[in-house]
């Protein structure tokens, strides 16, 4: 225990070793950090869900603030991750009359407070490959994955079409992970496979051609891919990959994880552009990602309407919380 300045408050609840968390896994530039950064905005966009996000330590709270400022105020994408970042957030909800219980002579319903701790580890995409960022970082990523209960696996169809590195990226890490943590041949993790950047023109057009798009019945009428079609969409997308090995990703996932513990989500961290004066999705003008003309970086065109960002995190969070109990 280091000496403290006199009068300084003790550090807030160091507590026992951190609970099993959720690790973000994906090749570089697949949108891991942007996904995390959009989580708070996604929850604020859907107040009817009743969930909110809070930081569990000062650093994580500060990160939430920085993400929010960067994306919603400055219209900038968050800075790429250079080291493994560990965000400790919590999803909290006050669910009205969610619990039915016997009270003396009758059943009563009472409100339920739920808190799902999220320990989210965001690693640079390059860290999966020991040749790129060195053995230290690569080893730490595998250690983190082994400690995690959930994995968010990012698949970016655009970069897969251009680079085709998803299989190479995943295979090395998962092989190492299996050697460390597999029980009876499969890893115990729950995996949310997120097909990202749904807001990109090419991705949306592909989904439309495959007829897997449904339009939200809400006010904005955003398109989306329902979860029941997401795996199929993923399967079709990997056929468009630049790499011949991309077709091996699904079998790799099936071999590595229990099938019932893998779910697919088609997501977009920044969502589609919505003209504020119209307020409805415009199929002729929806691109929210404005590519920068070098040396200027890319920017976000308008307000952020994340798609399927809460769902995988909430599912994994609840699962992890159950596992921890």
């Amino acid at each position: 225990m280091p000496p403290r300045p006199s009068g300084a408050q003790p550090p807030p609840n160091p507590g026992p070793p951190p609970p099993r968390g959720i690790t973000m896994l994906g090749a570089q530039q697949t949108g891991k950090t942007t996904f995390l950064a959009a989580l708070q905005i996604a929850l604020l966009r859907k107040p009817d869900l009743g969930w909110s996000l809070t930081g569990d330590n000062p650093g994580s709270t500060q990160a939430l603030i920085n993400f929010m400022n960067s994306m919603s105020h400055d219209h900038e994408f968050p800075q790429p991750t250079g080291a493994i970042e560990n965000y400790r957030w919590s999803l909290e909800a006050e669910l009205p009359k969610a619990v039915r219980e016997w009270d003396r002579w009758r059943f009563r319903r009472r409100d339920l407070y739920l808190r799902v701790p999220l320990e989210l580890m965001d690693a640079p995409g390059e860290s999966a490959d020991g040749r790129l960022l060195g053995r230290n970082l690569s080893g730490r990523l595998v250690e983190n994955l082994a400690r995690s209960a959930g994995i968010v696996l990012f698949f970016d169809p655009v970069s897969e079409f251009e680079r085709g590195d998803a299989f190479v990226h995943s295979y090395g890490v998962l092989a190492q992970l299996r050697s460390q943590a597999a029980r009876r041949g499969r890893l115990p993790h729950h995996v949310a496979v997120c097909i990202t950047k749904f807001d990109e023109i090419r991705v949306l057009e592909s989904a439309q051609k495959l007829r897997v798009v449904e339009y939200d019945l809400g006010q904005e009428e955003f398109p989306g891919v329902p979860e029941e079609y997401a795996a199929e969409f993923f399967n079709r997308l990997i056929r468009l990959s630049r790499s011949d090995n991309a077709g091996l990703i699904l079998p790799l996932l099936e071999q590595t994880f229990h099938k019932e513990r893998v779910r697919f989500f088609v997501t977009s961290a920044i969502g589609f552009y919505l003209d504020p004066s119209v307020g409805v999705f415009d199929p002729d003008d929806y691109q929210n990602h404005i590519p920068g003309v070098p040396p200027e970086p890319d920017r976000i065109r308008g307000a952020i309407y994340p798609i399927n960002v809460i769902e995988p995190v909430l599912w994994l969070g609840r699962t992890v919380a159950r596992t921890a109990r």
Partner: protein
Amino acid sequence: MFPAASEPASQSAAAADHRDEGYTLTTELFLQLDREQPPDDASTARCVTAEWALWGKEANETAYRVLRCSDGTFGVDDFREIITRYASGVKEELPQYTVCWIPSGQGHQAYLAVAIHELADPDPSRSGERSRTAGGREIEFVRLFCVRYAEMAGLGVSYTELIESVREHQLRPGETAPIPVTLRSETATRHAAPSRLMLENVVALLLTAHPVCVLEAEGTTAKERLLFIEQVMSLLPYGLRIRLSASTWASSTAQDLKLRLFFANARRDDGSKTSYLTWGVPQPVDLSAPRYDAVRLYLSWLHQVGSGAAPELAELTKPLRFTDPDIRRMVATLPRDRSVTETLEVLADSLGKDDITGIRGAVDRLKRHLASQERLADREACRQVIFGRGLLKDRLGLNPSTRASVYRVVLKLAFDAPLTYASYCEIEHAIGGRPGGALRSVLLRDFKIASFIPFILVAKAPPGFRDQELVVSLSQRGIPPTSPIDEVAGFAASIQSKHRVTVCDFAVHYLRHTAEDPWRALKRRGYLAETLEALFPGNIKEQRTRLHEILRLGYGERLSPDQIRDLFDHSGPHPTAALEDVARSMAASPRAVKLIAQQAAFARVSSAGYAEDALILTRGRVQRSRPPIRQTVRLIPRGTIYTMLVLLLMLAFVVFLLLTAAHV
């Protein structure tokens, strides 16, 4: 000599203001002073060799990697491991700086390294052919420079010094050789820490072997935070740098930070391994636990030694670790503080041996002593060593910047500021001539000079500024036209004879070229006749030359009778022999020569206190043909006296005749 009341009020006020500021050069002359100094000789300049790597990505790449590196001791894999090991996570702004260490092993020695985290410069000529973005995101480049610990310790190189010295090396494609880095000397002591207590707290916490994080320093720049890190390390033995990793910014959510000292915007969730301090908030650290006895002893040594600690610690270059046994060993062998005079003796010895490290160490220590006013009480003892050991003498073997840093501290120890004429004379006496080169440069640049006389003597010392340059410079600084000449006149007798020509000639030159009516100012000062007589007593020739110039300014080549009378106006000062001599030489005729002699004589009578008589004599002579001056006041007219005398004589004759007739 000349009453201030005779000057216009504004000039007097300007002169008074100027006395407070001292004499100084304009920017143009400072630049010229820089050009006069030869660049540091490569053989004597402090130089280290840096191995380097550039981390980042090309515009068309997605993954960070070592883009290029030197082909020295370390290869691509080594550099990658170093950079990723000390990664400090997401940064809110760039640039940021990291300092770290590389242990010895695999056939190489231990190294210290500095890393500059930055975006590529938008100016292509300064970007080192790096792209600012890739895939629409800004690229955080890392320029890493590694220098052998032995080199760093041998020259006492600070982190700030190394980073400033490598800053311009952009690491362009095609470069592969390790870089020779000429170290830039730090000319001024800068302060980043909000208080000494803050520095000592960080030092104490580092010695407890726990990482230290400084919070709420977002208002400072990365450079200031780097300077703070340097200041902290200057209060620890240099040998501990071989185990120090520090960064001007680290993400508080970054996992597994390998930093011992860093700045962040929030506490880390790391099981309270880290100690936290808040920038600018003085908080005493609780070190009462028995296991911190070595730390307490170290802090008490720091307090005891005070400002002299840093130079002493800079010499403790034996590698140390941040471990309890090493800290205890270090505390047991801490050096006692050297006094100022002892340090001056060390400096003299080091200068004698051309020992650059010794000179630098002594100079640094003296700087610390200078910062501590209580240590300057014994100035006379310092002066004895400085003059006795010839510390002001020019050391041509040293490079100019080292010479300048030596002069800077030695002069400040020997003389009070601002520098007076008496102090200047002592400097001349000590070096056996006029101060030139680095000494002159330091006097002009770093010293406030009290008055015109020492200023002009320094400024005109070889190679010397031209008169016109100095006139412009002083004029721009608001020196009144008559201020130099009045100072020369006031102190004429006390100015050393070898300085008189320089100060007198420039003062007259300045007056003639800056005054609105120089002739009037000179006339009011008696054509400087008496000043010149005081400056060059018995030397008529020196006086004549200057007086002739002055008189020519107002009267031309030849003097008319009216000009002669004007020149020797009875209200003026005592006409010196030289003035009469010069006037005679300018006489247009023999009659004019006679008039000059006459007027000079009257002027002398007048200045001797017989002004009234001189006036009478002068007017009587001049107005002889005119009616009597006081005719109207004569009680008995001159004709009446004569008539009465005749009548008296006639009466006496009649009386005589009557008496003779009566007798007969």
